[in-house]
């Protein structure tokens, strides 16, 4: 058989041993296949967690006095823990870097693959191993500690025994999180080295597309922060199985110390979640405005400064733990400070729209919704970052609504928009625009109907993690609105999956290399990409978002953005 690398990655393999079926994917070191595998696994987990959230909202439809009970209170505790563990550790933290970063980072910088393809596959296997361990822990016992595993409860809460065998589901889930963490770290190292060493000829740092920049900043955070939480979670495991005191006050430990160590990772982790989606928005908006992005350098630098400052403000999660006033003021100040680069980005995206030639593709709709939702999420974050209002709003539904506005309305909307943007390039199939837009409408309306009432509920004192509430008109109405919103949102999510699956099975085959007329490098190669991404080595001659030059290239018929050498 001819060995030409010019065939689609869907039909060519990296290993002569595994050339068919499941194993040709599972053993593949091709970054594109790994990205697709992550997508399948992650979106499956995402859907399960959405359903858990749906049941929790259903439980809150009527107040306690009405006798309405879908799930008992203990199960509710397990549900929100599982919802969070799946959403955070299995979906949004690996998130956009694992799916679209894997697939498009090498394409955006003109490389054949990531720097360490085999390590990349190892990361995926670690992800799967961690996911399986977490699922086993969930099925055999579960946990109701919340995803933060805060001691001393997480240390002292009992283990269950199944057929006389003691099964410590919490230790299982903690170990799973540790393994998932190593998967993330290895991905981060891989991407950093890829960006440093494998950029195409002529691609200086400030000629990289902005998604690559955001992946770069994210990767540093992954490498800098994840080891700390990894070992901290293991300390809880050690404390559960051995008579050692790290965080249990009865053995001399300090539970507040755990919270510091936990948030030293878990606050940067929220930027691990959001930065890649910001990068996707920075790709979608100039493409669909047919205009260079406003303030390219400031967005690139803002990504890095968000990563830098984001590392230093973990203790704003702990204002109510009785830390010193000085520390509280410092962390509050830094929290406000990190809003600056974030606001710069938002400003730049809207400025890019100005006088642009805007096409409202499904991806663009999700990107615009990202700006809207994330602005609400970011500004409500300011409420929580200022010391006095935080005392009132701490541990209320306001906090839940705030981080869903950033994580779901922001990060997940950005990721879904990114998948819509890149779908034709990834699979060579086109989805139904009409249904995709309808799915967006359901998601956007449902999302806001679900979470905006929760902001108000929190303001009126509805605590988070409670499985019911007293019979009061303000609570009843808003909870009902929120539950109805969840129905619309879940419909939207199901529609999104429906559109994707339908497109994969019955979608129109397309080989059009650049359906949205994008100027960045990843679009200037075959659809779907070939195994080695580019037929020949590429050389970069212009800025990534130089649409004038791009239109000239299209007119002249030269391969846009990249000159063959």
């Amino acid at each position: 058989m001819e060995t030409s690398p010019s065939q689609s990655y869907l039909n060519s393999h990296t290993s002569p041993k595994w050339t068919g079926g499941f194993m040709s994917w599972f053993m593949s070191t091709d970054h594109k296949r790994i990205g697709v595998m992550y997508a399948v696994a992650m979106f499956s987990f995402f859907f399960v967690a959405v359903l858990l959230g749906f049941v929790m909202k259903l439980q809150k439809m009527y107040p306690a006095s009405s006798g309405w009970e879908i799930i008992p209170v203990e199960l509710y505790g397990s549900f929100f823990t599982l919802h969070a563990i799946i959403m955070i550790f299995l979906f949004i933290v690996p998130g956009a870097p694992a799916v679209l970063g894997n697939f498009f980072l090498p394409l955006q910088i003109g490389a054949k693959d990531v720097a360490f393809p085999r390590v990349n596959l190892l990361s995926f296997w670690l992800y799967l191993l961690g996911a399986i361990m977490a699922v086993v822990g969930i099925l055999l016992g579960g946990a109701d500690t919340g995803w933060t595993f805060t001691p001393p409860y997480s240390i002292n809460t009992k283990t269950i025994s199944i057929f006389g065998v003691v099964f410590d589901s919490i230790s299982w889930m903690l170990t799973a999180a540790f393994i998932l963490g190593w998967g993330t770290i290895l991905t981060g190292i891989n991407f950093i080295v890829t960006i440093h060493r494998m950029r195409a000829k002529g691609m200086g740092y400030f000629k990289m597309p902005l998604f690559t920049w955001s992946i770069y900043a994210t990767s540093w955070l992954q490498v800098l922060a994840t080891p700390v939480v990894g070992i901290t979670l293991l300390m809880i495991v050690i404390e559960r199985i051995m008579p050692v005191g790290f965080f249990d006050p009865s053995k001399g430990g300090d539970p507040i110390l755990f919270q510091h160590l936990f948030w030293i990772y878990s606050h940067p982790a929220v930027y691990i979640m959001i930065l890649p989606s910001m990068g996707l928005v920075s790709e979608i908006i100039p493409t669909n405005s047919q205009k260079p992005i406003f303030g390219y350098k400031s967005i690139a630098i803002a990504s890095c400064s968000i990563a830098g400052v984001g590392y230093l403000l973990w203790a704003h999660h702990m204002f109510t733990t009785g830390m010193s006033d000085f520390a509280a003021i410092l962390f509050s100040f830094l929290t406000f400070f990190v809003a600056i680069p974030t606001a710069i980005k938002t400003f730049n995206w809207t400025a890019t729209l100005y006088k642009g030639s805007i096409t409202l593709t499904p991806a663009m709709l999700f990107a615009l919704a990202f700006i809207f939702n994330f602005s609400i999420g970011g500004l409500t974050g300011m409420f929580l970052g200022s010391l006095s209002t935080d005392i009132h709003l701490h541990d209320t539904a306001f906090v839940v609504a705030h981080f869903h506005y950033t994580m779901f309305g922001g990060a997940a909307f950005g990721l879904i928009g990114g998948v819509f943007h890149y779908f034709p390039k990834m699979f060579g199939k086109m989805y139904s625009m009409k249904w995709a837009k309808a799915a967006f409408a359901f998601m956007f309306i449902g999302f806001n109907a679900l979470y905006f009432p929760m902001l108000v509920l929190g303001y009126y004192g509805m605590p988070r993690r409670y499985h019911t509430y007293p019979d009061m008109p303000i609570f009843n109405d808003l909870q009902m609105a929120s539950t109805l919103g969840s129905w619309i949102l879940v419909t939207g999510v199901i529609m999104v999956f429906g559109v994707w699956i339908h497109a994969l099975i019955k979608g129109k085959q397309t080989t059009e290399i650049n359906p949205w007329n994008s100027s960045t490098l990843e679009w200037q190669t075959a659809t779907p990409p070939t195994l080695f991404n580019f037929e020949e080595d590429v050389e970069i001659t212009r800025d990534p978002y130089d649409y004038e030059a791009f239109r000239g290239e299209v007119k002249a018929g030269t391969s846009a953005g990249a000159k063959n050498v």
Partner: protein
Amino acid sequence: MSDITHPIEHHRDDEGTRLGFWLFLYTELFLFAAFFLVYSVYRSSHLEDFKLAAESLNTGIGTVNTIILLTSSLTMVLSLDALKKGSVKLAKTLLLVTFALGMAFLVIKGFEWSAKFEHHLFLQTAKGIAAGHGSPLLTPGSEMLPVGQVLFFGLYFIMTGTHALHIIIGAIWMLIVFFWMSKGSVNQDNHGVLERCGLYWHLVDVIWIFLFPLYYLVA
């Protein structure tokens, strides 16, 4: 499907690999940094107990182990140097010496640990009962060690234990590299693996350089 297979192109980028490995070492260092942070917090809050507990550690044994580990780092560097100069046999011998020194460290550590177990400082107590229950180190009349000392010994065992785990990983890695050197796949031209194994070993050494004074010397 008309499937076509392309064996992975062995794109070799020594500098990129080195960068990646240094980043990995950094994460290992941060893993221990969290332990050191916990240590320093509890040292400052239970200073007297930490001092008392540290006195029961055997400084002599600790010193011997430090010397062993430092020597092993030296033999590691010499091994890499020998390989770079092309004397594979010398490199292999020196790598085995490094391995043996690592094992010696573990054996001594094992004796030290079992002495501690005999003093009821760890693990042998039933789960849930704090360490030190019935220990001969107790002041007469008290049921258990003060919490500060419990914290000290807990940290001591977990930190030196994690360190020992890294010694074991490094030692296994050395055996693998030794095997590759015998096969000839690691040689004068392609010595990156030995270099990385050496870097890992030095990291383990550096961590011990911090563990040793914090547990044995600052009593």
